[in-house]
């Protein structure tokens, strides 16, 4: 278990990809703070599952687009765990619409949570990680941030922004022993993709060279790798976990 003694904060960890990452980090030995926005019961279930593995865990409610709330979430994590070794910026929302119909609010909400939220969480943990002279920041981007997607101008722009933010923060924090990398998931079986109509799903699968949707565990495995000792020398990278959609 190569994450023994490490502590992690995972945003949006009550379900989907975030939950899978939180559980995988815990399985490998890490204590995990489980952030959620609205699904308190689901977050509590994840924390219980982690505690059952013998790790420390607690839930922390926070809208990551709110700067003050993010700061108190990070403070709470440090007071519980004394340090933060791993931050996984996973929380995200969708407000899909065609460009010409997209309301300003739909644009703003997605940018605020999916891009500004990553900035705020990264900023908030930086101080602690700089003091530690070590840290791993893992940003969950998306394949659509690399290749675009009709009907998701806001989401695509935010996820492409996350890639830029990943590279800028990787350069800035590298001298302090902090690595920053992004994972760009393709189409992964989650609540978010389950909502798609069957026809749209089949069309999607047609675009995936490996011919199937991914599982949340595929993303968790990549996150665990980036959090572990084996990724010591990797920073500023975008790892596609997308069945080959973007090459």
């Amino acid at each position, binding site marked *: 278990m190569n994450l023994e003694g490490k502590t992690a904060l995972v945003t949006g960890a009550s379900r989907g990809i975030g939950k899978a990452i939180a559980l995988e980090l815990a399985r490998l030995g890490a204590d995990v703070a489980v952030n959620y926005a609205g699904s308190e019961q689901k977050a509590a279930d994840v924390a219980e599952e982690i505690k059952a593995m013998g790790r420390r865990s607690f839930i922390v409610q926070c809208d990551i687009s709110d700067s003050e709330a993010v700061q108190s979430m990070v403070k709470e994590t440090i007071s519980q765990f004394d340090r933060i070794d791993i931050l996984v910026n996973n929380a995200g929302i969708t407000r899909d619409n065609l460009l010409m119909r997209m309301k300003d609010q739909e644009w703003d909400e997605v940018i605020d949570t999916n891009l500004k939220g990553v900035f705020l969480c990264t900023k908030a943990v930086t101080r602690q990680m*700089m003091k530690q002279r070590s840290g791993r920041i893992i940003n969950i981007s998306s394949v659509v941030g690399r290749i675009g997607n009709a009907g998701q101008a806001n989401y695509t722009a935010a996820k492409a922004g996350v890639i830029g933010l990943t590279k800028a923060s990787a350069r800035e924090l590298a001298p302090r022993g902090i690595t920053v990398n992004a994972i760009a998931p393709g189409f992964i079986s989650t609540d978010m993709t389950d909502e798609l109509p069957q026809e749209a799903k089949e069309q999607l699968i047609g675009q995936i060279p490996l011919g199937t949707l991914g599982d949340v565990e595929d993303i968790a495995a990549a996150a665990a790798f980036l959090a572990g000792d084996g990724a010591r020398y990797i920073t500023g990278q975008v790892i596609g976990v997308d069945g080959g959609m973007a090459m």
Partner: protein
Amino acid sequence: MADVLERVTKIIVDRLGVEESQINLDAKFKEDLGADSLDVVELVMELEDEFDMEISDDDAENITTVGDAVTYINSKN
């Protein structure tokens, strides 16, 4: 005052790897002591810990010399 300067000096020597003799109240962190922007941020963080105070980003931006740091700390204590 002397005590504050002494403690500030120790932190700067440790953090920036400079000689104590290079440090005076007029010494600029970046130009004279070879600090980069991140070094200055870290220095401010260490000063906060050492003197148990919070230095806002706005205030921190105005701390560019050893004397600025000493004066700021004295004004808060």
